[in-house]
Structure formats: C-alpha cells, structure tokens
C-alpha cells in the first residue's frame, strides 16, 4: 500500500513528538542517576548537570550496607510475587463473575465492592481490625487485603464485557461450568488486561510500606521500601521536635541532614528492579501479535 504524503508527514511528526517526550522523561531520571555516581560535594553544590563528575559508586555501597537490607529484599520480592498472583487471580475472577447478568444481586454486590474505593475510616480502626485478625507481624497481611482490588475488578469487568458474547455462549451450551469458562475461554482472551493489572499490582506491592510501618515490629518482616524509607528519614524526628517549638538543645548537624545523593541513590535502588522486570510484562500488552480469534 503506498503511503500518501499525509501519511508520511504524520509518521515523521509522530516519531519526533514521541522522541521529544521520551527525552523529557529520560533526562530527569538521567540527571538523578548521575548525581548518585558523582562526587558528593560536587553534586551538593549543584555542579553536576549534564554529565557525571568524579565518578564513584560509594553511595550505592553505603546504601547496600544498610542493616537488614537483604532480608528486606527477600520479603519485598515474596510479597510482590505472591501478592500479584493473589490480586490477579482474585480480581480477575471476581471481575468476570460480575459480568454475569444472572448473578443474584449482581448490581448490589458490584456497588458494594466499588464504593470501597472512596471511603476509608482512618488508619487506627483499620489497624485494630488487622490486629484482631492476627495479621500484625504476619506476612499474610501483605497479601490478603490486596486480593480484591476494586479498580482491577472494574477493569476486568469492562474488558470482558467488550468481548463478543457469542464466545461464551457457545461454550456454555456445550456444558462448560463457570470456572472452566473463565480459565479456558475468557482468561486467554483478556491477557493484555491481566498483564496490565499484574504490572499495576506488582508495582503497588513493591512500593508500599505504610502497612509495614503500622503492622510490623518484627524486623524479619520489614520490606525493602520500609528499610530504605527509615534510612532516609533519619533527620525527621529532630526536625519535628524543633517545629513544636521545644527548643533546640543538643543539635548535631550530622544527624540533621539527609544528603540528596543518598536519597536519590535509594530511589534508584528501588526503581531499577522494576525496570528490569518490566519488559517481561510489556510484551503482553504492546500490540504486536494478535491474540485470540472470534469465529462466528
């Protein structure tokens, strides 16, 4: 098929515009990265802008020496993998179930699930419930509450509803039960959306730490984010005391300052694993190969 002039022009513009935007996205990240490998005092006085100066990797060595990091990394990986599995299976299945018009009280239960996105009663009541369920200092506290994610349920439901009905109907007439319908017929067709909610859920699990803050006092259950977050916020307790106007006795400057280099290094350490895993998911939702086919 010959490309018209308009087509070619569009192509070129498209490539360029995306190229520019991508650079806009990369440059800040690149800027942060070179801060972490440049000499710290040069970085602090703002002299490192376009390329690293005085390259060293000490910042990474320092952060990687933080106590409990390796155990925390394992905990984070475990919760990410298991949590994502749980969320994908749970939310996808529930989303599918809600597409069935026949379900008793479908609209009511759907709304029941959805409106939970818009309210929360505060951390203390949530904490007390978790405590009463024995989920404090318990690994399952990372997994169970995440299984039903209303947002993901909505996505799956919307997606499945856009699939042709003929598909399911023919299988139903052949006598397939609900679960078989879901696993053999519907699931393979919604792979892109499943991949999407998998990546959303995985990133969520990887980045969350508030639950660790409140629920865990056993340091074997600390996640990577939590350990690093604690490491970063060392200066905050003194700052909080100063803010409350209690006077500034015994202030030690070394305790008050969090160097930006360290903060950025931590950010890099947290992001890089995600970037490594991401391409694995990407091929499921970037259009390339067509998946599934509907035959009359």
């Amino acid at each position: 098929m010959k490309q018209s002039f308009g087509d070619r022009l569009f192509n070129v513009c498209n490539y360029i515009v995306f190229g520019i935007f991508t650079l806009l996205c990369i440059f800040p990240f690149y800027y942060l990265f070179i801060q972490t490998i440049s000499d710290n005092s040069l970085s602090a006085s703002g002299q490192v802008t376009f390329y690293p100066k005085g390259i060293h990797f000490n910042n990474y060595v320092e952060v990687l020496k933080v106590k409990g990091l390796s155990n925390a990394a394992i905990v984070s990986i475990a919760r990410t993998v298991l949590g994502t599995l749980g969320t994908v299976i749970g939310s996808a299945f529930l989303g599918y179930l809600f597409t069935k018009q026949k379900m008793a009280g479908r609209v009511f239960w759907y709304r029941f699930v959805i409106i939970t996105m818009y309210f929360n009663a505060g951390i203390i009541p949530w904490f007390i419930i978790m405590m009463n369920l024995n989920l404090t200092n318990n690994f399952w506290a990372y997994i169970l509450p995440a299984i039903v994610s209303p947002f993901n349920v909505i996505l799956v439901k919307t997606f499945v509803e856009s699939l042709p009905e003929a598909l399911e109907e023919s299988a139903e007439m052949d006598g397939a039960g609900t679960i078989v319908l879901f696993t053999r017929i519907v699931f393979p067709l919604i792979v892109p959306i499943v991949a999407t909610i998998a990546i959303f859920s995985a990133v969520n699990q990887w980045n969350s730490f508030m639950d660790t803050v409140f629920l865990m006092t056993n340091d074997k259950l600390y996640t990577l984010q939590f350990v690093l977050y604690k490491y970063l916020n060392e200066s905050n307790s003194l700052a909080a005391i100063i803010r409350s106007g209690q006077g500034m006795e015994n202030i030690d400057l070394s305790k008050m300052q969090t160097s930006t280099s360290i903060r950025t290094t931590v950010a890099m350490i947290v992001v890089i694993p995600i970037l490594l895993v991401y391409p694995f998911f990407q091929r499921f939702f970037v259009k390339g190969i067509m998946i599934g086919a509907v035959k009359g």
Partner: protein
Amino acid sequence: MNPVVEPKRKRINFSISLRYRLLLYAAPFLVLVLVFSYFPLYGWTYAFFNYRVGFPLFETEFVGFKWFTSIISNEYQMQEVVRVMKNTFGISTLGLITSIFPVFFAIFLVEIRTNWYKRLVQTLTTLPNFISWVLVYAIAFMLFSVDSGIINKLMIQLGLQSQPVNYLASPDHIWLKMTLWSIWKGLGWSAILYIAAITSIDQELYDAAKVDGAGRFRLMWHITLPGVMSTFFVLLLLSIANFINNGLEQYFVFQNSLNKDTIEVLDLYVYNTGLVGYNFSFATAVSMLKSLVSIFLLFIANQLSKWVRGESII
C-alpha cells in the same frame, strides 16, 4: 472441543441454581472486602466523640457534630475553606480535562511501525511515574531555582529575560503548572491501560476496513478510538468521584508561602492546619465528609452516564 455431557456434571447442577452458584463463587472475595473495607468503618463513630486513643469509647465524651461544624465556625475560616475549595475545583477540573491525553498517547503510539522504537518509548515514558514527588521537586528546583537553575540561565543567555525569575515561588498559573507536572509524571503509565485495550481489538476489524479502502486516520477514528472509549469513560466517571481528593504529596512539596494561596488544595489545607496529626476525632470527621461527598459524586456521575451513553458504569 466437543465435550460430551458427562453424568457427573449433574451432581453440581441439581444442588444450586446458576444464580446462586455465581454468588457462591464470589462469596469468599466479598467476605474479604467486607472484612478489610467495611469492618473498619466502625471508626466513623469516633468522629462524634472526643476520642482519645487507648481509652474505651464509652468513657469518652459525646460531642455530636462539633467537629463537623468546627470547620466553618467563623467568617475567616469560611473564607479559607472557600479559597481552598476553589483550588481543589480548579486543579481537579484541569485533571479531568487532561485525562483524555493518555488515550491519544496510546492511539498514536501504536501507529509507530518500528517495533523496537515503540517498545522503547513505551518503557521509558513510564520512568517519571517511579520518581517520588520529593525527588520531582528536587529536579524542579534544579531546573527553576533563581541562582543556579538551568532555565533561568538559559533564558538570560538567550536574551529572553534580563533578570532571574523565581518560577517556583510565583503564584501565577499554579493550577496549570501542577497539571503539567502531573501529566509529565503520569502520562506514560496511564497509557499502559489504553495500549492494552487497543491490543485486544480484533485485527479482523482492521483488515475488513482496510479492504473497504479506509486510510490510517479513518481506522484510528472508527476502530481504535471506539475500542478504548468504554474503558476511558469508566475511568473518567470514576475520577469524577475523586474530585475532592487531590492527594497531598505533590502539593506539599511544591508549596511555599508565595504560592500557598492558589496551591493549597483541600487535602493540603487539612494537613497544614496540623490537626489531623493528633486530633483523631477531627481527622475522622474530615475523612467521613470526604467519603460521603465522593460517593455522592459517584452516583451523580453514574446517572450522567446513563443519560449520555445509555449505560451505567456501576
């Protein structure tokens, strides 16, 4: 794929009808939702007392709606609340309007034929999503600070400015600036969903249309766009329900006293007046109000959807 109806299936068929069987399958998940999202709601009762943590509720003083009315108890406070709601309104509206951008991003991205370029762009544009707002501000500071900011230096060199301008402290166009930062941060990531949606569109539709002689833009307009619209509308209407919840972090890091008037959204205002830290009842009252408003907006949006598109989202 010609399964014979096996006798053993009858075992399931006669006990519970399909209607309730479906509900049964859903039941364990509904229980999870009940336990983790609804049980904690008992905490809303705290909003009506002078609750102190650690003491049993029946020992604390009942105060009715005191905390709710304290938000607007005098004239100056009313002014403050009005100002803050204006900011929230402005920023949320801009957010809603620009929420279509990821759709266009996705649609144009799939038009790129070179596979490696497409995937590279897709991966790299998600990077800003992973940079926390604190670090985003560090970048912003590097770019826009008065003394050493790159932008100021550049503008002066190019002769467009004679003096450095304090961009970060300026109260002008704050809503726009905040929206632009949000877009930069979220565009690549939000587009993932729409890219996935486009991937699921049946290739046959495209083939058939091409046979009919449709050009590229026709294809985009008549096939790709409708394919993602249902997803988009669902998300749009859900965002309407989140109208008053702008979040805290972004506005917290960018605020300073010169732009505070226009950047202070509701969440930030509540945080700034410092009460939610220790006055538990007040914090609960605020959270309760916001939840009720959100749910109300959700049902309104649903009604809108019924009128405009003929179907409800929930």
